């Protein structure tokens, strides 16, 4: 019975990892890839580490595995957010099928400060386009 649960957990986790890596290859954009990594891979890693926790079922090992799972759930999202912000600031192009880009023109291209509205409405930045070129 224990082996069956371990097999099911590890299979689900491995299939999630496989779907994430296929999506890494097929998504058209940096931001979609970061989104896919932050969503699916946490579940895949969590399922496989849960299978390891069921296999060992000793208190030191299970607490260590829970620490790894919590650490991954916290850090993958933070790292993905930082990387997406850096990619957006350095003007990596957004996929042409993207409908809404709510961040367009809200980052100051020199100081990397996020404004709540477009810098065109900001009097200090009146002479700059959103992509950093002078008019």
């Amino acid at each position, binding site marked *: 019975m224990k082996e069956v649960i371990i*097999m099911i957990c590890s299979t689900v986790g491995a299939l999630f*990892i496989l779907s994430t*890596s296929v999506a890494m290859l097929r998504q058209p954009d940096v931001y979609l890839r970061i989104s896919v990594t932050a969503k699916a891979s946490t579940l*895949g890693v969590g399922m496989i580490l849960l299978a*390891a926790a069921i296999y060992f079922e000793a208190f030191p090992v299970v607490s*260590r595995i829970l620490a790894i799972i919590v650490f991954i759930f916290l850090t993958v999202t933070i790292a*993905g957010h930082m990387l997406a912000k850096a990619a957006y600031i350095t003007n990596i192009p957004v996929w042409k099928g993207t409908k809404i880009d709510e961040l367009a023109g809200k980052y100051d291209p*020199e100081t990397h400060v996020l404004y709540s509205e477009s810098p065109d409405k900001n009097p200090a930045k009146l002479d700059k386009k959103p992509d950093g070129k002078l008019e």
Partner: protein
Amino acid sequence: MSFENYFYWVIVPILAVSVILVFVRFLKGPSMADRVIALDMLFLVSICIIAIFSMLFDQSTFLDIAMLFALIAFFSTTVYAYYIEQKNKR
């Protein structure tokens, strides 16, 4: 089918195929952020492989290496993001 055979013939090949697919994205990636996120994904898949092999060899101390890899993945991704952000700053 026994437990070890299932891991050897199903789980480990799935993870190996996913490592190959992510590594293709690591080689192809048009921008540097693509490569960094592919590197992060490679670290995550390697954590899975370490967990699978710790079950196969019945060595729970391998999971310390998995924790170390999670730390390295987070720090390398954040430091590379900071580097990409500050690289073209005038």
